[in-house]
């Protein structure tokens, strides 16, 4: 374990990943301080103007909106859109900060639940073998017969908009990789003498799986999970981009990119005039995903027994 941590910090690319992750964690934790919410639901991005087209960075909150907040007795501390506003006058800076919480929420919750389901199903399948294994693996095949994005998109469309529905869709079609992975490792570990010994001693099946097999086979799953957080966040953002994910005005990076989509070309004579509307949310998504992938990639090389001692 110590070796793993030492390697993680001594490798340049994973160090970059760790630093980025720490920055994102700080942003997420201090979101209420960095960007104080103006409505009861902090995930609702405040609007800076009623204009349809994006406003340049440094734009001051328009008077008619300021009046509304005064009327609601809200103390508007930040009335300047540091990163500009996106389509519909939504404050980009606010969306970036609270969107970090959204990203962590989506990434961690979906991956943890999906990994848990996958490990449960996969270990049962491998341990009992025979027809149980056959049936479970065929069901896994069926779920794997859909492109991930398409499956998630169809399910979200049917369930309706909302972050919870997006997460349900991502989990429903996200557990199969873990099931296959853990099944493979357990099938190999099952033949080891310590498992045979435990069986001969009459240890209960559930205890053998839980105490002996899982601790010896769980590491690849954790690497997979780290790598998977990025792709879950990308897929959730893609759903928002396609207009079936988070509800309108929710602090979500994917939706901000989707708002920016109509403005990316700029106006005649001013190509790229609205660059900020896509640049900021885009760079946040990329860096967030990249940080997890950098850490995951190094973890995988470190824990891969075939490469052990050669890094």
């Amino acid at each position, binding site marked *: 374990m110590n070796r793993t941590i030492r390697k993680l910090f001594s490798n340049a690319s994973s160090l970059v990943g760790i630093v980025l992750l720490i920055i994102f964690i700080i942003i997420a934790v201090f979101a209420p301080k960095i960007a104080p919410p103006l409505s009861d639901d902090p995930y609702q991005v405040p609007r800076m103007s009623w204009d349809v087209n994006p406003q340049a960075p440094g734009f001051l909150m328009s008077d008619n909106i300021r009046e509304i907040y005064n009327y609601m007795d809200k103390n508007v501390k930040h009335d300047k859109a540091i990163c500009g506003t996106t389509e519909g006058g939504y404050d980009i800076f606010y969306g970036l900060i609270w969107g970090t919480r959204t990203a962590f929420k989506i990434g961690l919750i979906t991956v943890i639940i999906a990994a848990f389901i996958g490990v449960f199903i996969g270990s049962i399948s491998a341990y009992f073998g025979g027809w149980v294994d056959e049936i479970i693996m065929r069901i896994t095949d069926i779920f794997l017969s859909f492109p991930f994005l398409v499956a998630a998109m169809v399910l979200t469309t049917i369930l309706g908009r909302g972050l919870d529905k997006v997460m349900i869709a991502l989990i429903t079609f996200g557990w199969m990789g873990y099931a296959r992975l853990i099944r493979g490792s357990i099938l190999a570990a099952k033949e080891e003498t310590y498992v045979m010994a435990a069986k001969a001693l009459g240890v209960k099946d559930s205890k053998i799986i839980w105490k002996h097999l899982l601790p010896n086979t769980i590491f690849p799953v954790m690497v997979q999970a780290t790598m998977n957080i990025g792709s879950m966040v990308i897929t959730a953002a893609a759903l928002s981009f396609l*207009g079936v994910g988070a509800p309108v005005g929710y602090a979500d990076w994917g939706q901000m990119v989707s708002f920016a989509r109509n403005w990316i070309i700029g106006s005649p004579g001013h190509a790229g005039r609205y660059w900020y509307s896509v640049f900021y949310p885009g760079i946040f998504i990329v860096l967030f995903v990249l940080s997890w992938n950098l850490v995951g990639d190094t973890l995988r090389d470190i824990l891969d027994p075939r490469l052990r001692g050669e890094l």
Partner: protein
Amino acid sequence: MLSYIIRRLLLLPVILLGVTFLIFSVFSLLSPMERLATYVHDPASLKNAQSVERLIDKYHLDDPFPLSYINWIKRVIHFDLGWSQTANQPVWEAICQRFPATLELVLYSIIPVVLVGIWLGVISAVHHNDMLDQTIRVSAIIGWSLPTFIFGLFVLFIFYGILGWLPPGRLSSWAQDIVYTGTNFKSYTHLVTIDALLNGNIPLFLDALRHLIAPVITLSVISWAGLLRITRSSMLDTLRKDYVRTARAKGVDEHTVIHLHAERNALIPVMTIAGMMIIAMLGGVVITETVFSYPGVGFWMASAAQSLDYGSVISFALLFASLMVFGNLIVDISYALVDPRVRLE
């Protein structure tokens, strides 16, 4: 090997049944009224409660699950997938009309994925851990981390917004006139680039190609990075095998060792993954087509999902799942043909 292929073929109906069952279960989350909307294309026929009742009865939407499932399957087998409000035509017709555009996009994207991905993967493994390997590896991780829609918008921004070289869509308007309303143009394959060549119309071919470049780059970049990683690790694994050491020990030159001894064996697992990646590219099609307003199945799917055109969305899942199931079958069988270890089992 024959028994392997037979077993694989016998599994096909089971998987297809499971896939349709899963899709229909998701579909059944909707109320009968909502499902009815996928069969009716004239709102006037829904004018009173009675006619709605009658239609729900007619399409067996309120039957118990197994019955309505069987009924739905019967319809699907006859390609009766309902009516698409977004396309304003029957769903199956809409699919047939838009599929060639998507196919063309995917076919062109395979070339850079396979060539560049495998080539760089081998280089990266051969130069394990030196500067070149690190650079290739980091760029692959970056490519892997780039969401398709952001990368696509970036490409659109540079090559259309600023430079004006690569416009969105599938054809310029003058080219559309030739293809869709022209009298002299014969559509043999419905793949515009190939049809243009068959008709001997070079400007049309170039126009179609110009519209394809940006979406092809966008669609291929993720699979490219993924394939690179797989090739690299498979190649690293193979280079450590005894027979490679033997070959080196007996003085075979490095070029032959890498390209003749190691590469051939390393590429066997890569081939399966490559097949799966090409199939997985189908998912990226939805985003790529939406970004570039490329009129294929994916673009239509996105607008159908936004306007809650359930019939189209469900059919889309059905289409892509079947493509994947048959694609995987082909990959598995060709794998058996190539790898002697599978063949003998």
